[in-house]
């Protein structure tokens, strides 16, 4: 159905260049860095990244990131603070261009974006209604039904800067829906929302996904409810550490090493194996040991 051939390959010129570059992670991987072997873009993808890297000054914020979001699936991007999650989202949204690699976005993909921080400056007067009208050419009736759908009808005439965290998220989701997206990208939607509100919020996202057959890319650093509902979880820490299906709580041994033992005691995680952990600086360390014995190995 897509106007563009979904199997299209990213321009090869972008990809080959990294081949000779040594891995910047400085540790052993269970995944390959070699670019020419980058996985093919799956049919019907809503958005894909291949070999994406981003430098800020001398610092490599992201390196060799591959990612796909398919229709109807929830992909959760997790990683500690400073892992490059928001940078990756900015690249996917086209706000910035990657310093290496490609973002593939078929012409049929329409993104609804829910940003992480939305502390509306109180110097700007804005009702929820006029805020929603600003993002898309929407009729008053459509605005009302979008707010109903996200459970925020009561806020229609309220000032944006006076909303609670949960209300703000619902309003932002309503605004994204008005753009009739097939891909919803939410950056830390649960930040500023209390625990029970968080569960409700994920319920909402799940419902919308089913109803509109949305692909969903969720960014999170906290893992409570996210994991249970995700079809796929990608663990990011500058590079893709691991990715896979969410799994039993009992399988989280290695996962705890990134996010700390506390997180692991209450959370369900997925089965995959790490061959490294990250210390406070994000530096890769082997499991159990204090430092890597041989980085070049």
């Amino acid at each position, binding site marked *: 159905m897509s106007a563009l051939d979904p199997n299209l390959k990213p321009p090869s010129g972008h990809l080959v260049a990294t081949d000779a570059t040594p891995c910047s992670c400085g540790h052993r991987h269970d995944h390959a860095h070699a670019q020419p072997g980058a996985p093919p873009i799956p049919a019907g993808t809503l958005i894909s990244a291949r070999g994406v890297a981003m430098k800020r000054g001398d610092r490599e914020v992201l390196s060799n990131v591959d990612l796909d979001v398919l229709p109807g699936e929830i992909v959760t991007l997790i990683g500690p603070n400073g892992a490059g999650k928001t940078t990756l989202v*900015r690249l996917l*949204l*086209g*706000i910035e261009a990657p310093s290496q690699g490609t973002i593939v976005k078929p012409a049929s993909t329409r*993104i609804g*974006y829910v*940003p992480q921080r*939305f502390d*509306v*400056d109180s*110097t*700007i*007067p*804005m*009702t929820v209604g*006029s*805020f929603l009208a*600003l*993002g898309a050419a929407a009729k008053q009736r459509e605005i009302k039904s979008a707010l109903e759908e996200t459970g925020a009808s009561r806020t229609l005439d309220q*000032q944006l800067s006076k909303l609670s965290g949960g209300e703000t998220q619902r309003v932002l989701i309503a605004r994204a829906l008005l*753009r009739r997206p097939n891909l919803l990208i939410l950056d830390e939607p649960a930040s500023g929302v209390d625990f029970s509100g968080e569960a409700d919020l994920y319920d909402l996202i799940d419902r919308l996904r089913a109803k509109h057959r949305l692909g969903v890319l969720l960014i999170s650093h906290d893992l409570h409810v996210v994991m249970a509902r995700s079809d796929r979880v990608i663990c990011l820490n500058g590079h893709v550490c691991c990715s896979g299906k969410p799994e039993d709580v009992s399988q989280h041994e290695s996962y705890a090493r990134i996010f700390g033992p506390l997180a692991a005691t209450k959370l369900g995680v997925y089965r995959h194996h790490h061959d490294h952990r990250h210390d406070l600086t994000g530096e890769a360390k082997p499991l159990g040991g204090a430092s890597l014995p041989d980085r070049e190995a």
Partner: protein
Amino acid sequence: MQSWPDPFVWRAFFAALGLAIVAAPLGCVVVWRRMSYVGETLSQAGLLGVALGLAASVDLTLAVILAAIVAAAVLTLLQRQSTVPLDSALGLMHHATLALGIAAISLVKGPGIDLMSYLFGDVFAVTRTDLVWIYTGGVAVLAAMVFLWKPLVRLSLHEDLATAEGINPRLPRALFDLLLAVVIAVAMKIVGVLLVMAFLVVPAVAARPLSTTPERMAVLAAAVAILGVILGLWLSLSTDVPGGPSIVIALCTIAAISLLAASRTAR
């Protein structure tokens, strides 16, 4: 009020009125984007423009507009770099332009050039040519603002969201800086370099508590500015205080009342 006021009073009134209306929506955007320091720098670059205009015997309004546009371009470049924090760079440029402007005017100063009139403005010295500048320029600026309004509001609300939704963040910003430079250059004559930003910012600050949407804030800011002009000119005529400071005093009084009233109802 024994008879009709003198023509110079009418010219002052219409000049200030026209500027008040044009400056209001720009002042709102300046407040939202927290760029009053930027405006200060532009207006002081205008002072440098006066000096250069005098030296080169070019039309002064034109020279001021050009100087402000050059300063706006420099500021746009400053915003794109990250080696020097923007606030520090502005602080430097702000004071450098003011000092250089005053120095340059003192050097080229000929007969009939009064530094004070540039620093504080002289609303009662407005000429017919000035009025033509204000009203033709004003219509052009307002037309451009209508065109830029939605992108500017969206970028002020959340730049990443607006950009992700397909708004090019650079173009509206650069055009706005240009419009701001023009308005400041013209308003400088009336309220002076030192007070020109008050003319833009204070009405917007006064209008904020009374507004529920950005558009209403712009309209109310214009209303506040008009009221401030009337009260200020009346104050100036009846007390011999210069026109520019009088208008700013009136505007600040209105803003203080508005903010006080807002903080009371919020309680």
